[in-house]
């Protein structure tokens, strides 16, 4: 069947398997020449596609055990983060680290070592993972943990499924008193101000900025910086505090068809950005926002990836080291503004320390942009790659759909070590994705 990532680019013809038991999965692992696991297809590009054998884990999605003392949940890889929230938020638990969508599987979150708005404080997803069970090329299950098979653990977190099929894992949830977030919005007229706001907010649990990437000159890097804390009962009205985990069920908005290509152009994006910034700048105060709106605003628009039209879109996300962040971000944003290719969603975030074999984050700043796939934007992305490399940055493989192996190697000196680990354990020939082949990983 035709398969693509969330960005709907590229689209590849692939054979898809949906095993319903470990035994069926094992048969595939030992008999297919090569394969890759796929969770809920939320990686943007071709990370979870193997044209010969893509193995969906959607039926391996059972919760196994929960310890209400420690908040440790053991579950199979196909469980969605949203399922975990549905089950455990009413009991006062929330994921320790969550990406911008709740529609990712546990296995996918581990493979991409996803990050959330609290990376500067709590680190990436691996910070909440106690152990992982993973099926190797021989069909055998291996248990890996930071205190056990640390090398396998280290290469699996952020390893994009290239170290085996993640079967189950133990993660720790965070105790929360309510389902609400106390959000503070600050308007930053330019990049310097936005970065200063992040630096001043190191103690906030959550921080993220929406950035107007069409702002140029004095407006370059114009942002709304949003800080958040888990609300406690005392923050709420008496009536709300009676049912602190209840939020109003939301109406889901669906995108029923592909938007035509002209729907998102620099004029419409510019107009939207100006309005959004002004609206945000007006309510620079603190308000209570429910968890779903705060963490997953885009999940409310089912199929939002269709607004980019039939040809799909490409994401760009880089991380820059702290000391070169300001220069790098200035260069990147100037290039985007100059090209006039409006990115509808542009997000800036401060990363904290990160120490791992192949995970994306590094201490500094990360910038995420997305563009409809056109020859013009693909050329722009090449230029953004080069700017990132020039400033010592690297790229997020869960978002990538088009960079070259040479770009990866120029940006990430850890690549040869990762490759060597794969080679020495017999992973390279067995666990392959369209992305790993493109990047010669």
């Amino acid at each position, binding site marked *: 069947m035709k398969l693509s990532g969330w960005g709907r680019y590229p689209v590849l013809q692939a054979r898809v398997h*949906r095993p*319903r038991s470990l035994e069926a999965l094992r048969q595939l692992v030992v008999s297919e020449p090569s394969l890759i696991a796929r969770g809920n297809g939320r990686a943007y590009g071709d990370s979870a596609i193997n044209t010969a054998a893509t193995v969906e884990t959607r039926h391996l999605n*059972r*919760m*196994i*055990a*929960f310890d209400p003392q420690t908040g440790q949940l053991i579950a199979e890889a196909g469980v969605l983060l949203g*399922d975990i929230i*549905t*089950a455990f938020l009413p009991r006062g638990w929330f994921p320790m680290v969550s990406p911008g969508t709740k529609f990712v599987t546990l296995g996918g979150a581990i493979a991409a070592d996803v990050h959330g708005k609290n990376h500067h404080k709590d680190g990436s997803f691996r910070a909440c993972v106690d152990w992982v069970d993973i099926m190797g090329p021989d069909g055998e299950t291996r248990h890996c943990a930071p205190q056990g098979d640390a090398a396998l653990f280290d290469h699996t977190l952020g390893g994009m499924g290239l170290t085996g099929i993640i079967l189950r894992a133990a993660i720790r949830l965070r105790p929360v008193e309510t389902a609400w977030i106390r959000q503070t919005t600050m308007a930053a007229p330019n990049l310097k101000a936005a970065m200063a706001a992040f630096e001043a907010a190191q103690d906030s649990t959550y921080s993220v900025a929406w950035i107007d990437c069409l702002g140029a000159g004095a407006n370059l890097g114009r942002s709304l910086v949003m800080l958040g804390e888990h609300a406690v009962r005392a923050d709420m009205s008496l009536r709300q505090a009676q049912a602190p985990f209840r939020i109003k069920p939301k109406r889901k908005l669906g995108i029923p068809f592909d938007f035509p290509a002209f729907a998102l152009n620099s004029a419409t994006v510019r107009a939207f950005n100006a309005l959004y910034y002004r609206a945000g700048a007006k309510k620079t105060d603190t308000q209570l926002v429910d968890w779903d709106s705060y963490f997953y605003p885009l999940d409310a628009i089912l199929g939002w990836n269709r607004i980019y039209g039939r040809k799909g879109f490409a994401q760009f996300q880089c991380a820059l080291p702290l000391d070169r962040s300001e220069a790098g971000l200035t260069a990147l944003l100037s290039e985007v503004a100059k090209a006039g290719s409006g990115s509808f969603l542009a997000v800036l975030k401060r990363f904290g320390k990160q120490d791992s074999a192949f995970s994306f984050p590094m201490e500094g700043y990360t910038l995420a942009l997305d563009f409809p796939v056109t020859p013009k934007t693909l050329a722009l992305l090449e230029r953004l790659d080069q700017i990132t490399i020039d400033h010592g940055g690297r790229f997020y493989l869960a978002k990538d759909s088009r960079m070259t192996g040479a770009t990866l190697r120029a940006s990430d000196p850890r690549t040869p070590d990762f490759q060597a680990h794969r080679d020495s354990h017999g992973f390279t020939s067995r666990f392959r994705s369209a992305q790993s082949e493109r990047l010669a990983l």
Partner: protein
Amino acid sequence: MTKPPVLILGARSDIGKAVAHKFAALGHPVQLAARNAASLEADKTDMELRYRVAVSLHDFDALALDTHDAFVAALPELPRIAVCAVGLMGEQSENERDVAAAARVMRSNFEGPASILATLANRFEERGSGTIVGISSVAGDRGRATNYVYGSAKAGFTAFLSGLRNRLAKRGVHVVTVLPGFVATQMTEGMDLPAKLTAEPSELAEAIARAVERKKNVIYVRPIWRLIMLIIRTIPERIFKGMKI
């Protein structure tokens, strides 16, 4: 307030599982019935963890008709709602040539489900309450060359459900007939199904829970199927017999 128990017959199937999840999520205790029920232990744990409801496992063989009375008698509590997701499609080409294979399909889709639902219906009638949900198929609306063995058994089951509903309408027992079109399950895996006509098992489960609550009689999952089947049923036989459909 505790909700009444729901019995799922054919709980290992993708549809049976999805329906079990749906009712458990609504707070109902669920009774999962299938052959070799012990192998559903992991699903039991999963549902108990997610929904904090009681889940029990029960060995059940739809084709062992003489065990059905004892099966119902052994349930911890007579369920308020019983959903039958038992079924077997087989291969039409095999069903055409192999009488035994065809008989297995007919028994699995008609005889077995009708037998267990008849047993439950009588107990529900005695009690004066309950809802029976039979998952039949649009394939039963008209026999077609490509799957008439399966379709004829489903036609029998659909007629059985209709009659049962008629009989019990004044006895406090309601019967829902579910006519899914294509559903993305293990049964249809590998078939090239049109996405717009194909429902996920979870969609079916939502529709069933809604139908039970609103006392619907016959539901098509994805409304377009009502129209499609209306057209297929109204094509005159002299034209229909020459069609490749």
